[in-house]
């Protein structure tokens, strides 16, 4: 879609953090009505570039032109005034306020009063134009993740955005919701808005975008003018600088059950309740748990990890009843876990990486004796794993929070796999990771499977589950809606189970 006057143009943007050049001489432009894909591995500089555009960072060199006019954007307020709206990966919403109130935050009202009627009218207009329906009176806490994202988009449009930046918007959505998002984005583009779409999922990029800019090591590695007719492999190669071959899952030879859940239920604490979950993971098999987020996956992972006690049912590891075991006790029996949210439940970002790497096993003889730590052993363990897993960091004493997502995930993987777990439960193993890092993680899972470990992968990315898993169970509203052999499973069939359309399979 060639258009002469770009809506926005970034020229020669350079931004360094200390010795690291996050962006170097990056050019990027978006025309009205254009959906631009912004691709790159983690650490390639996508986020920095968008933060420069959105006014969070001042570039060291380069300029930003808005409709041909040089613009100075030094705060998000400047960006909003210039018609740039951003939908972050983590939403910025006030949970207790209603949809309408969230839209009106920061909007000057009439003579000091909030203009609710005006807001309602404007919301109705935006909803109608792009099919983005929202109940204005609902509090944000009552919205699903997909609806919250819709609200973020509406919020940007409400403030008059002409350019919309979406940072990995599909990471949190179910397949059916992705379709809805895409049709809304296409409708916006058709009305002359510019859109920057950041994603790791190449099939989505190919389906949606008109043009792509690919970043690698902070520089523009290449541009793709016709994404629909470019192969994912070719794009992946541009991103990584080398060819990527998907891992091959050999035939499965499952052994005995290592983990079994029988009629596990939880009454309503917080979040979704589990209803009579029964499943079995055998040695040497990978079981996928698919489902739209919020259908009980988190509770299931917590029960299996020993963090939450089930109210009914029985859970066994290698035949031993562990229904009432603490996290430390199930771990001692050989359960490894990689939590969904690396930053909040996995690691301690403000402490040295080594501390996070020994956290679950600090009380064991490997890292302490009689209540005294063994600092040398802790350090040596961390150094060994950093080397073995090629975790990019200055050393084991680096603050964990300073590492990139992919390296943190490797660190979490290393800390669990170092102790040869019998059962491994992982949630969203590659969320937010680039192709190279994801590939590495997948290979490790397949290695563990070959060694006879039983693995449960909780995920939303169906393509990933289909590649990785031997069987896939689908969770819907706290129960297992069906389990499919991955040979029989397709995205479409799983999608039906995920939305509760198809019953037990």
């Amino acid at each position, binding site marked *: 879609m060639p258009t002469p006057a770009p809506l926005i143009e970034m020229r020669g943007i350079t931004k360094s953090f200390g010795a690291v050049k996050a962006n170097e001489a990056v050019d990027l432009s978006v025309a009205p009505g254009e959906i631009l894909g912004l691709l790159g591995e983690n650490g390639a500089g996508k986020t920095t570039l968008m933060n420069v555009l959105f006014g969070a960072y001042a570039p060291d060199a380069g300029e930003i032109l808005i409709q041909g006019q040089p613009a100075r954007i030094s705060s998000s307020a400047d960006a909003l005034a210039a018609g740039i709206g951003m939908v972050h990966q983590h939403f910025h919403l006030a949970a207790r306020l209603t949809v309408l109130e969230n839209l009106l935050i920061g909007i000057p009202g009439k003579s000091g009063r909030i203009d609710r009627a005006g807001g309602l009218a404007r919301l109705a207009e935006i909803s109608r134009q792009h099919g983005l329906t929202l109940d204005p009176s609902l509090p944000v806490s009552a919205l699903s993740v997909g609806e919250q994202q819709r609200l973020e988009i509406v919020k940007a449009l409400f403030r008059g955005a002409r350019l919309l930046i979406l940072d990995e918007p599909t990471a949190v959505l179910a397949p059916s919701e992705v379709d809805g998002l895409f049709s809304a984005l296409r409708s916006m583009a058709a009305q002359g808005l510019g859109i920057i779409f950041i994603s790791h999922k190449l099939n989505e990029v190919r389906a949606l975008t008109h043009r792509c800019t690919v970043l690698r090591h902070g520089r523009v590695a290449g541009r793709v003018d016709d994404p629909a007719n470019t192969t994912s492999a070719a794009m992946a190669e541009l991103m990584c600088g080398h060819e990527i071959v998907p891992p091959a899952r050999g035939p499965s030879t499952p052994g005995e059950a290592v983990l079994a859940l029988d009629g596990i239920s939880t009454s309503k604490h917080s979040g979704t309740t589990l209803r009579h979950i029964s499943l079995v993971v055998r040695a040497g098999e990978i079981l996928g748990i698919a489902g739209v987020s919020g259908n009980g996956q988190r509770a299931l992972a917590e029960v299996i990890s020993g963090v939450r006690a089930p109210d009914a049912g029985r859970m066994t590891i290698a035949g031993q009843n562990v229904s009432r075991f603490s996290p430390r006790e199930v771990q001692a029996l050989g359960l490894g876990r990689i939590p969904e949210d690396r930053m909040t439940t996995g690691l301690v970002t403000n402490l040295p990486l080594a501390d996070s790497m020994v956290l679950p096993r*600090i009380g064991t003889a490997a890292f302490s004796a009689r*209540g005294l730590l063994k600092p040398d052993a802790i350090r040596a363990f961390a150094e060994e794993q950093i080397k073995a897993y090629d975790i990019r960091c200055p050393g084991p004493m680096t603050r964990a929070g300073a590492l990139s997502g992919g390296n943190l995930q490797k660190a979490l993987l290393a800390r669990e796999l170092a102790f040869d777990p019998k059962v491994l439960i992982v949630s969203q193993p590659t969320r937010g990771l680039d192709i190279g890092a994801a590939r590495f993680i997948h290979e490790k899972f397949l290695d563990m499977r070959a060694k006879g470990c039983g693995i449960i992968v909780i995920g939303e990315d169906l393509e990933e589950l289909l590649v990785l898993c031997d069987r896939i169970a689908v969770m819907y509203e706290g129960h297992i809606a069906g389990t499919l052999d991955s040979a029989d499973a397709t995205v479409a069939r799983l999608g039906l189970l995920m939305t509760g359309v198809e019953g037990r399979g």
Partner: protein
Amino acid sequence: MFRLEARTSTPAWFNLALPLLAIAATLVLCSGLIALAGAGVFESYGVMFAASLGDSYAITETLVRAAPMIFTGLAVAVAFRAKFWNIGAEGQLLAGAVASCFVGAIPMPGPLAMLLMALAGAAAGAAVALVPATLRVKFKVDDVVSSLLLNSVIYYALMALIEGPWKDSFSGYPISPPIEDSANFPVLIEGTRLHLGVIAALVAAPLIWFLIVRTTLGFRIRVTGENPEAARYGGIHVQRVLLSTALLSGALAGLAGVGEVGGVHFQVMSDISPGYGYSGIVVAMLARLNPLGVVPAAIFLAAVMTGAEAMSRATGVPAFLSDVIQGTALLAMLVALLFTAYRIRRVGAVQ
């Protein structure tokens, strides 16, 4: 135009530079008040320095004053590491003082009395700290508020004690009976007040440092404070860690009271602590919650307190300046801490 930008890492020398920067800023800011009071700034600070650190006697006096603040500073540092917001070191100190005075008044051999005083004082402080910690763990009561308000409860309980059953029937003063002479802490240097409790405080700091840095309990305290969710998922019993931390913190604050009774006042009166519990917060923050840093931070505040009195006598600047310096130092340190997370950048460099 300047703006704040998030830092990716904090250089190690900041740990030393920031408190010094905060102290320098404090002295500069407070020099305005000295000038306002009509005295010479350099002269006043000179008197302060001479009276607090200028000769060996002054140094011992400063150390005697620093001892309780080392204990309360450690108490606060340990608690804050676990994000147990113990603002109640003052009350815990008073409880420790009362308990040790009670024990010290019972006739028994001196060394045994001192040991039991320390145990009783530590236990009393720990028991008081357990209240806000339990309320937080069991009922999610805000620990800042409960530990702070408990200070008044303890203070008035102490007043009731010394105005009531403990009142000196001979003089009628609201003071407790003195402890036995044999229970008085030995003085280490003849002619000074440098007592055994000061050494105990100086030894406690490296011990607590060791506990935080080198033990599994310390590890659990640090992890719980930085990320309770990750701690819970990692198999750490977070509530138990918080309660242990509270016991430790309260015991340390209680020991501050023990030292004041056994080494300085030998009895309990209403003004036994001029706010050492609150000063402990300033000390801990200046030390950036590092137990080793607590010692110099406490000595600095003690020097300000002793120095301010001498300055007041020599120059007529009110001794309240000491409180102003303390408060300003805390604020300056809080501002300085901003630089660990952010850097200042000039904007407008885009060309």
